[in-house]
């Protein structure tokens, strides 16, 4: 039922989404912690910037990324200087765009989880000789398990589901930037509805199962991506 091109698109999607999720957790954790703990005045600006991809049309984000990472953009010039070439229409470019696009879906659940922990366990840890970094790894992270689970699942599934940003930044290059959502679009454009059904149905079932797993693991409502 799935053509080799479909399978290639699926495999590429899994790679992009996995890599993006890992990067998102590594970047999002300190960012979320900083946003929760710091007394910095410009915090609202940072919060708004992080939340921006939630409301922005993906094509807008994709357009600016394309311009920035292109040969005349600031990022593009930098990557060319570093000998990396330009990022648009490459796998790396796709991952970078995905990270920005899914950032709020990882950062916001973590922020909510960190806020819920409150000060008390941190103070208890300090009186038990744990340094702040030690406390973060041995108290904050274990107590935020559900926040991390929610963040990882939302980050992954949201990246799988992106379309506009991908089309703008990645284009439609088989096995390099053609992910599932783009492949479905190609099938529909070519009036290949049965192939489109194969992928679209698969994605629908996958997303539902993942969310079902999330909700049943947490019993209660998972942390909402929007506060």
């Amino acid at each position, binding site marked *: 039922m799935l053509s080799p091109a479909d399978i290639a698109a699926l495999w590429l999607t899994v790679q992009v989404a996995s890599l993006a999720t890992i990067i998102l957790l590594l970047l999002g954790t300190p960012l979320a912690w900083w946003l929760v703990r710091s007394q910095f005045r410009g915090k609202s600006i940072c919060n708004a910037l992080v939340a921006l991809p939630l409301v922005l049309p993906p094509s807008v984000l994709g357009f600016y990324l394309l311009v920035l990472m292109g040969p005349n953009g600031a990022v593009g010039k930098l990557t060319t200087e570093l000998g990396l070439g330009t990022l648009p229409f490459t796998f790396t470019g796709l991952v970078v765009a995905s990270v920005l696009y899914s950032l709020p879906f990882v950062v916001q659940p973590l922020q909510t989880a960190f806020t819920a922990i409150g000060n*008390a366990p941190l103070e*208890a840890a300090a009186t*038990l000789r744990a340094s702040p970094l030690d406390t973060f790894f041995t*108290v904050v992270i274990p107590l935020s398990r559900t926040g991390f689970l929610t963040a990882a699942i939302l980050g992954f599934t949201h990246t799988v589901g992106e379309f506009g940003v991908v089309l703008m930044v990645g284009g439609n290059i088989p096995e390099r930037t053609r992910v599932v959502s783009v492949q479905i679009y190609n099938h529909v454009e070519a009036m290949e509805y049965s192939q489109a059904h194969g992928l679209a149905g698969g994605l629908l079932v996958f997303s539902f199962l993942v969310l079902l797993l999330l909700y049943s693991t947490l019993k209660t409502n998972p942390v909402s991506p929007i506060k």
Partner: protein
Amino acid sequence: MTEAIIAQFKLDYGAFSLDVDLRLPSSGITVLFGHSGSGKTTLLRCIAGLQHAPHGLLAINGTTWQDSENKLFLPTHKRSLGYVFQEANLFAHLTVLGNLCYGLKRIGHTANTAQFDQVIELLGIAHLLDRMPERLSGGERQRVAIARALVLNPELLLMDEPLASLDSQRKQEILPFLTRLHNELNIPVLYVTHSQQEVAQLADYLVLLADGKVQAAGLLSDTLSRIDLPQAQDKQAASVWQVTVIEHETAYHLTRVAFAGGELSLPAIDAELNTALRIQIYARDVSITLEISKATSILNVLPATITDMIDDKEGQSVVRLQVGSQTLLAHITRKSAQLLALHTGMMVYVQIKGTSILN
């Protein structure tokens, strides 16, 4: 008294300010007493380093923890202290044993020590070690929290109203453990409370705080008998005496106890001879007479000297007396005081209508 804890703090939050300069003993239980908003918890948090007072000097047994003038501020995790919070504040993701070992690991110790076993035994939590905190009762949780602080064998134990979140039954469950802690471990304790009962039961040294300032500080008996303080005029005003069991009069269901300078009869106490006890005598239960009346039902009539008197605004006289070497407070009506022509230095007899045993 060894003056081993020096604590000076100044902070100003506008609506609330703290300004204290204390010298506290390095042994026994020092109670910081005051109403909510008096600054007692803030003071404790400053001592722990959980709050950073801009002006402070804090030294514990010769080790400086804070010296603002020299820009020294040791972070909490580098201070040799134990802290028991109002809520037990256990780590929800660790078992009881995991909670107890959390601090131990960080000072390079393990749970395989006699001291660890002693603390577990003292607080009666040996059967709880494998449980998760959510499966403990409030009282058990607080006992684990106390043990978690104690196993570190800190130089100073700080307790912030550890009983306040418990109902009176759970309080009675934990108080004996605190008394044992007092008797068996040699760790100085700073104990914050607004309960007079806990003051009477636990304090060796008492600091009275009001509006962020120290009203009085001194040995429990000295501070309680300061008749110039609102404490002595309160309806619950009481004297606390240290006594020793000397005889059981089983026929009358009475127990004789001795104090420094005399003896008392108390309702029968289930305690061995020579046991040291703390008793509390409410000022309202003490009356004064000029001569020993043979026709009285009151058993405890003792010779005493009036050392000070003060009238309050409501027709009551607060009298401080010396009985043997103990001080005693009496609340009598101003009319009686005038009829008997009481004055400082006068020899009288006190009749004690009731006492309560504190531990």
